[in-house]
């Protein structure tokens, strides 16, 4: 059993990280009062832009192309998210419909461009991030084997970004204002702060984070843009809700969901797990989110002004 767990752990972590960035993307936007159902679209844009950038730059500059690919993807995601921001902030449109439209635009547009670039619509990169052990830490008993062996550097980058956002949202006046926009925008406005500007910043950060989630998939386990992130963006939204719109909550929720999904992916390979049908593990995150919504329905932590135009 221990052997199974240590074998699965690196996969579970690799799968969790894009989910964590996706959930953080949703969180930053929704805490500012803009509903974000377009994490899937942001991820797809990042998935596409990073694959395209890296496939062009890698032959020229080698492995530093990976980091540049991620950065370009984040910038592209931030610009793309303005589509959702403009509709939901400036035009006060229905944010659910706008989010759905943004998802569909991302799906159609990325494949449209990809087909013009490669013909088949698939863009693959030569080499992703090479796994390595974290110096010193990997020799810690038990934990070292689980978390610090065979890791990607992008994993540590993303965890640092998550910690940065926790600090930004809870320890700075910027974060307080941003959260205020999601709870009681008129109170924030009466303190002389531009609610629209705050929400635009939040949406763009959200777009960048969502795109990073997609980019991380390219440089770690996927390696190829194929026109779909297979609902990972919606799984991230589920994790955000299950984590009750809190950074620590989403960290727990994404690891929980990441492990469940990974077990579902590999359960047929391990004798100790193969007695469970994999569908249980795949459906589990969505079902448990529905249960959580029922349990928390009386005391939901959802931002009070989520989805309300100002």
């Amino acid at each position, binding site marked *: 059993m221990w052997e199974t767990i240590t074998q699965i752990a690196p996969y579970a972590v690799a799968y969790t990280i894009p989910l964590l960035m996706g959930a953080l993307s949703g969180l930053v936007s929704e805490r500012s009062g803009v509903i974000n*159902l377009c994490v899937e679209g942001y991820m797809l844009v990042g998935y596409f832009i990073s694959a395209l950038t890296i496939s062009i730059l890698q032959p020229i500059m080698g492995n530093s192309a990976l980091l540049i690919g991620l950065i370009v993807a984040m910038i592209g995601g931030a610009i793309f998210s303005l*589509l959702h921001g*403009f*509709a939901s902030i400036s*035009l*006060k*449109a*229905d944010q*659910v*419909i*706008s989010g*759905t*439209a*943004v*998802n*569909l*635009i991302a*799906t*159609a*547009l990325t*494949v*449209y461009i990809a*087909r*013009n670039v490669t013909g088949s*619509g698939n863009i693959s990169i030569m080499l992703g991030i090479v796994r390595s052990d974290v110096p010193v830490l990997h020799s810690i008993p038990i934990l070292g084997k689980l978390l610090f062996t065979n890791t990607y550097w992008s994993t540590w980058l993303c965890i640092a970004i998550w910690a940065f956002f926790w600090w930004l949202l809870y320890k700075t006046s910027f974060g307080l204002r941003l959260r205020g926009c999601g709870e009681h925008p008129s109170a924030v406005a009466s303190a002389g702060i531009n609610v629209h500007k705050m929400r635009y910043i939040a949406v763009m950060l959200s777009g960048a984070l969502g795109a990073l989630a997609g980019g991380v998939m390219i440089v770690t386990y996927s390696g190829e843009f194929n026109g779909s992130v*297979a*609902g990972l963006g*919606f*799984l991230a*939204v*589920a994790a955000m*809700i299950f984590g009750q719109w809190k950074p620590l909550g989403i960290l727990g929720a994404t690891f929980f969901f990441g492990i469940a999904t990974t077990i579902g992916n590999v359960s047929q390979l391990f004798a100790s797990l193969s007695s469970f*049908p*994999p*569908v249980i593990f*795949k*459906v589990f995150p*969505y*079902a448990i*989110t*529905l249960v959580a*919504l*029922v349990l928390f*329905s009386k005391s939901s932590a959802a931002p009070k002004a989520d989805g309300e135009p100002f």
Partner: protein
Amino acid sequence: MSAKKNKELKSNNFIIAISAVVLGLIAGAILILIIGENPFASFRYLVRGALMSVRRTGTTLAITTTLMLVGLSIAFAFKTGLFNIGASGQILAGGLAATTVAFAVDIPHVPLIFLILLTGFIAGAIWGLIPGLLKAFFNVHEVVSTIMMNWIAYWVVFYFVPAFLKGPSLETESAGLPFEKTLRVSWLTELFDGSNYINVGLIVAIIAVIVIKFIMDKTTLGFELKAVGYNRYGAEYAGIRVNRSVVLSMMIAGGLAGLAGVAYYCGYSGKIQIGILPTQGFDGIAVALLGASSPVGVVFSSFFFGILQAGKGFMSGNTLVPPEIADTIIAVIIYFTATSVMFKNFWDKRFKKINEKRNIVQKDSNSIEEDN
């Protein structure tokens, strides 16, 4: 001056919808121009691909069938104050249940058609029932719960089809339904010059439109459902059982999307693929929005999107334009319908100017008359 011309011009749903469509087509034209093709020629191929022969028209109508039922489901939910973003899951639920029953039951064709339609409706309704109950009794927003239900359906299909309905060759789809187990009937196929896709789903869709229109406009039930959608608390005060209405609305919307699943999987394609969340569930949002959530509007808008979807293959075969252009146009149209307030302001301003001008002209002519 005629009385009609004197009437104040105002923006309405129709003008806003047309504005969204025009902008969607312009966005598509720009994308076609970028890759160096001629947009007008491409759009002509698109329309020709959908309508140039009786047979192709049959295929277009078969695609329209699914969109009409999904659009009706979402439009009905909108009218009752609900946003059914879970049509994709209900399509899968209805399609999977109907396909399973079609394989399992050996009865003559006509009763089988009724049986699988009923099965699909019930399965879709059950997929709508859960979000309905959660909304009515726990105040869980239906947008979130139906999205969860979408992905539950996705994974159930993903594992159920290879385990129980596996075809002889491909792992990613079920075995094909034989002709006498589908919604296809020989007289319709012959009527449309041998189209392999046209099926009785089209008739079902038109009947569904009429039934829903009748329920909404002429019955107490429809009035109650609409009242709840308009103002939940007002409806409650008027003695309408709000919870029952919400659950019923979600069930009917789910059932209609379930029928769309039957029309698609047991009529159009004749088999069910895994690993795909049907995009019709989202295209249906465009259909409903463009049709201003009215059953009759849905008929026309679904035909419009049916042409886009049916003709894209022919267009990309004859030009360098990838077929995804159709999906891009649909997505842009949804986006612009969501931001319709922009057009409303635009047209209101234009019309205000025109109206003012007219008033001045009228005043002038009136004063001239007075002078005389």
